[in-house]
């Protein structure tokens, strides 16, 4: 039996702020979106792990006459993203979005505008908000197949620094580690078939042999460093490269770094040997 005092309150309302991801949608054609998502996320169908998201259409080029919401939503849900609402959508498209079960939100409901960063709660939290560091809000955590061994998570910053995740045993095939909001340091290398993901940079002492994805939330300044380079795949902010024809001679088995060069829409991955003496 429920508590007597709760008898009359079968439903109760309280204020809450939800951290959501904003997806800036620049294309409404489902086929082209599908291609773009496939390029970005490849074979990681559960990448978003049920993350709620607001679809923002402010960067949409020309507004189409109609949008096939069913196709767009089912596409996003395939990657386990949960679209909950839209904003900055042209008025003639709003009715369709409503009918597809999406909330139509006014632009004023939001404060955060930084792409990729989290929407901040409207009322400032009692404690001083962590300064510029990427807000730890949206958990992209791709459900670990076998979580990192003894994942020694550093306490989330109260000094404004993003936490660094240090793994000091070898990462084995089938294991996956995600450093949310910060850098990842591997002290014993990784094996083929394992996967490391970091929102910041990746530092790998020992062999880098699995898949390494840095800047997972779009940080194009993230880099990957390794003392023994030999990965299956590297990616920075979604720009990735595989090594079907082998690792370039200049870096294979040696110290190397991976970074993005070029500007906004013309990023290229550059892999260069590391000099140390």
């Amino acid at each position, binding site marked *: 039996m429920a508590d007597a005092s709760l008898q009359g309150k079968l439903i109760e309302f309280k204020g809450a702020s939800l951290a959501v991801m904003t997806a800036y949608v620049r294309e409404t054609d489902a086929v082209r979106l599908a291609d773009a998502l496939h390029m970005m996320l490849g074979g990681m169908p559960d990448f978003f792990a049920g993350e709620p998201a607001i679809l923002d259409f402010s960067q949409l080029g020309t507004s189409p006459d109609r949008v096939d919401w069913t196709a767009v939503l089912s596409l996003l849900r395939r990657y386990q993203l949960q679209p909950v609402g839209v904003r900055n959508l042209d008025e003639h498209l709003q009715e369709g979005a409503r009918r597809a079960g999406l909330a139509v939100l006014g632009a004023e409901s939001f404060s955060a505008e930084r792409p990729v960063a989290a929407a901040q709660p409207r009322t400032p939290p009692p404690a001083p908000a962590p300064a510029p560091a990427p807000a730890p809000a949206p958990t992209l955590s791709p459900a670990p197949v*076998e*979580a990192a*061994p*003894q994942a020694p998570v550093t306490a989330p910053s109260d000094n404004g620094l993003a936490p660094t995740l240090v793994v000091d*045993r*070898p*990462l*084995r*095939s*089938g*294991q996956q580690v995600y450093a949310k909001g910060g850098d990842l340091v591997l002290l*014993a*290398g990784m*094996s*083929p*078939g*394992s996967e490391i993901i970091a929102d910041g940079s990746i530092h790998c002492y*020992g062999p880098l042999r699995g898949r390494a994805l840095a800047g997972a939330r779009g940080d194009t300044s993230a880099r990957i460093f390794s003392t023994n380079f030999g990965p299956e795949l590297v990616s920075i902010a979604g720009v990735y490269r595989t090594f079907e024809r082998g690792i370039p001679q200049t870096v294979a088995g040696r110290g190397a770094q991976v970074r993005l060069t070029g500007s906004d829409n013309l990023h290229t991955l550059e892999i260069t040997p590391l000099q140390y003496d």
Partner: protein
Amino acid sequence: MARVIVVTSGKGGVGKTTTSASISTGLALRGFKTAVIDFDVGLRNLDLIMGCERRVVYDLINVVNGEANLNQALIKDKHCDNLFILPASQTRDKDALTEEGVEKVLKDLEHLGFDYILCDSPAGIERGAVMALTFADEAIVVSNPEVSSVRDSDRILGILQSKSRRAIEGREPVKEHLLVTRYSPKRVEDGEMLSYKDVQELLRIPLIGVIPESDDVLQASNQGTPAIHLKDSDVATAYLDVVARFLDEDRPLRFVAYEKPGLLKRLFGGK
């Protein structure tokens, strides 16, 4: 305190059961009271390798389910007084293994005064394999010198790190040993096989030994005699070395260098 040792590999057919039989025999020959448990429920093999298949009355699942007690199920080895075999059930499946049941069997074996308990893991990473490694103190990871076997061994090392009791409770991690089996120095020389150094470099755990590929193993299996009993064979010598190293004795690696057959040998054949 009994030490629980899991013999595991991920991949099938690499020599787990041969290794379990030989190492448990080797430990028993050294005077340690040793039990070897077959975790391959549904596909039991250990009893064949140990030559006790006709003496199986009760099995591991009977003990787990309380249908028999340990003393009824343990089979005394025909060669060594200190060695006992706990066979797997052939008629049940691996879901019959429960964590509580396995834990109780291991506790009871400890109370019976066993020094070493070897768990012969089934191939794969499913329930049977996970149950075999859950309570391990040490792990002997058996790998053949080829990439798919090494990859699977790597996977099982990851599971050891995440699913063993020691890992879950945050105790000292399971002590890992690498055993390279079916090693042919000639084929390594010819570049057809990974060298044991390559395997170790890929897996990055301490090497406890290299067992040469040999027809003797097949013969021993068919006879139901653990390979370690084959007097003067390379395989038996290599397994005796492994047992010695396991007991912290220093033994140089043997049977890893390829010697070109000399003129006489080439003329007169010979093995």
